[in-house]
């Protein structure tokens, strides 16, 4: 062993002695995570479960709370259906067609992420409010009430979650080889068959994960909805708004219980997305 090699070995041994740096890094990262994320989560769970599972359940199933939860799930579900179809369409158009203003449209897709959700609500009220021309016309001609009602909530959610499906589908669509579609055409497949059997299947996983993300985002939406839908119990009060009301009226247990329900929903969705992502990565690797 040359002298230099010996020195190097010695040095690495010394480094192995007490790895302060490495441990220090881990400890600080983990305690930060605990402080910021885990402890608040645990506190809410502890509070929500302070009267046992049964107590939690009876608190959630109180008519007003239950109605708020159901309204949240219902409006989010409608939003997800619309968003999935239109988001895929938007991504397809953005990837496959050339038209003037394409790059501008592409940049606009992310705009909802940058606009404060309260502002979103204000915009919708200005547009659809019962005193405004469009809102008044909708109510008069179609009997459709937007503001202070579920359509308003769906519109607000659509606006807020617009980027999720588009951005999930777009990169996958970009990476798809056009020759695969050409091959299907040469085998006799028409445009719709090509889309259904060739283009869509590889999009399903990213599409699902985009849809779930937008659902998770929608379930907790507060700012836009409080402006658009107000806070009318049993009619336009969503779960998030309900929680806020409970906090305002100093009913901590009620707030915690519904919060736990919201978190369980959101958490399981995120978990599902993670699962899909890892499955996709697994596919790519083989």
């Amino acid at each position, binding site marked *: 062993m040359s002298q230099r090699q010996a020195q190097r070995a010695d040095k690495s041994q010394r480094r192995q002695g007490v790895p302060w740096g490495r441990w220090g890094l881990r400890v600080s990262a983990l305690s930060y995570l605990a402080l910021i994320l885990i402890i608040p989560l645990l506190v809410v769970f502890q509070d929500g479960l302070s009267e046992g599972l049964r107590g939690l359940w009876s608190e959630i199933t109180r008519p007003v709370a239950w109605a708020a939860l159901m309204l949240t799930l219902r409006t989010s579900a409608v939003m997800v259906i619309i968003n999935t179809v239109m988001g895929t369409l938007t991504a397809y158009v953005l990837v496959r067609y050339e038209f003037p203003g394409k790059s501008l449209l592409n940049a606009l897709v992310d705009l909802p992420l940058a606009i404060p959700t309260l502002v979103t609500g204000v915009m919708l009220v200005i547009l659809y409010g019962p005193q405004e021309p469009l809102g008044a016309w909708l109510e008069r001609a179609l009997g459709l009430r937007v503001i202070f009602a579920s359509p308003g909530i769906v519109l607000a959610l659509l606006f807020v979650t617009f980027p999720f499906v588009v951005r999930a589908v777009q990169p996958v669509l970009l990476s798809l080889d056009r*020759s695969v579609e*050409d*091959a299907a*055409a*040469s085998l006799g497949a028409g445009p719709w068959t090509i889309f259904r*059997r060739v283009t869509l299947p*590889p999009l399903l996983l990213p599409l699902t994960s985009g849809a779930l993300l937008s659902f998770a985002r929608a379930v907790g939406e507060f700012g836009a909805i409080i402006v658009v839908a107000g806070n009318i119990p049993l009619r336009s009060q969503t779960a998030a708004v309900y929680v806020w009301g409970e906090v305002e009226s100093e009913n901590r247990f009620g707030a915690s219980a519904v919060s736990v329900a919201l978190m369980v929903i959101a958490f399981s969705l995120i978990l599902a997305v993670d699962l899909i992502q890892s499955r996709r990565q697994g596919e790519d690797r083989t």
Partner: protein
Amino acid sequence: MSIVLEHLTKRYGGHPVVNDVSLEIADGEFFVLLGSSGSGKTTVLNMVAGLTGIDRGRILLHGRDVTDLPTQERRVGFVFQNYALFQHMSVADNIEFGMTLRKMPAAERRRWRDELLELVGLVGLGKRMPRQLSGGQQQRVALARALAIKPDVLLLDEPLGALDAKIRIELRRSLSAIQRTLGVSTILVTHDQEEAFELADRLGVMSFGRLLEVGQPADLYQRPATEFVATFLGTANLLVGRCAGESIQLGPVRIPVACPARAPSEQAPHTPPSRSPVANELDAPAVQRVQVLFRPEDVVLARDPAALAVPPFGQGEVVQVVFSGAYQRLRLRLPPLAGVRPIAPPVAFGDDAVFVEALRQQADVEFLPLQPGERVWVGIRHFHALEHPGLNFLLLTDGSPQAQAALALGGQLARLAHARTVVLGYDLQGEAMQRHLQQAKELLGSGLAALDVRMTAEPLAQAVHDEAERQPYDLVIMGFTATNGLDLAETIVQAGEHNLLLVSRPQETPMNVLIAATSGEPGKDDVLFAGRLMRHVGASATLISVLDHGDDAVTRQRAERFLAGGVRSLEILGVPARSAVRSGQVSPTIAKELAAGGYDLLVLGTPLADLDGRISLHGVVEQMLSQTPACATLLVRSTKHSHFGPTVVETVRI
């Protein structure tokens, strides 16, 4: 005929990527389209499949006109270079995809699927997913999938391009066997010569959108008609010799091969049975030179001329010896030969030697071992004279803006016409000249058949005269301004036997050409040379004749007959053409037509030379060029001898 392609043309942004391609493929034939990337071969395949629209032409598959049918209804099997398998379906599902769409009963479907799996050698792999297979296996699946619909024709786009060398050879064999088993008419596109030679019943060579030649591989290799094909396929020794009656003189060797016939008397251009006689005649150069090809394996080497068994070509020095398995490659350097100009292998600038590539089998190597530096006698066992002499362009430049425009347009034309090109720099000194010529070289870039760059300090007319002495040019291209350009153009046009293209400003490749058939005296040459050029470029033409208001009906009829003949000749060449007769003063009428019709090239004939051989451009040409023209102007030299029998001579004087 299974596949008939008629005059297929496709342009992208004005450039023809596929230019007047016509082809017939017999039942069960394995046809290979060979060309370098960008030659348009894949576009042709996509046209047949209906994946690319066509601008002009017609496609028939088994007698069925499919030109306007969508891909789905053409019944073609298509195999892509990147396999293009449905990644989310199993191998079996991939193969069955087309059968399901055709509503084939399930039992029959399974049976045919299993047969196909056996045919492509993938028995037992039906349940695998594509990504679990190797590249070669995936391409076998793609082949089975394409064959599953029992297509009328099979189209293969570089199917072996993405595979390792060893797999490629293996799959090549399978492909050939499968195609023979099923007897399906096939077009395969490739840039790999070896692949083309091995697979093809017949072979077509494409370059810059044109299908240059079609034939059996051995035929094209041994008897190519064009310089491009001669040098593109295998290694070529290509020399320019002179025609000498019933034989060709190549340095010391007289080859008892008749010069490719193009004597006017032997041709009947008015009723041509096919396009080639006219094409040959049009390619007739002013001087009877001929390109002679011999392959490296046709070169015989011996210590003394008597041992050659063929007439000696010369004594050369061995420059390079390369061992390549079963063969030995040699490069020999011969002293300059009178009347011989080498094309391939290329000779370095300033060198006037002739290089010859030779290929010997190991037995010959043992019999006569050779080392670099040794001298040896060279004989040639077999010659082939090319039918088409090819075009020669001379580009003149002094670095001025109009010369730059001329360089750009000339380079583009040379690329499309496969012309050998010389750039001659003048009126520039020292470093400026070097820099400019370097720029010119970069501007012209790749795709040229051959590019030489030279400079001169002599007066331009003298320099062009000297250049033309060394080697006659078909076309000289130069920048032009109305202020002092005409006198210079006049001297240049008489410095040889060439035509002259004057360029004033940057422009795209001409697509729409106005040929003024009355400006020069005989007129026919204008039409023919312009047609020859446009054939390569993919442009369309309008023939215009301007009559005096006072001309009688007979004159008018003659003019119309002449124009009709010109239109026919152009169309035989594959150049879409129409004619127009106008009345009025010649140059204003043409100028008006030029501006109104959106033309981008004007063709004028030069007047006939006077008794002293002088050509004067004063007259119509001067009037047309008195203001800097909006588009390039081609001045076509009128020769006294018309190639067009007595009927034409009569119509020629309009």
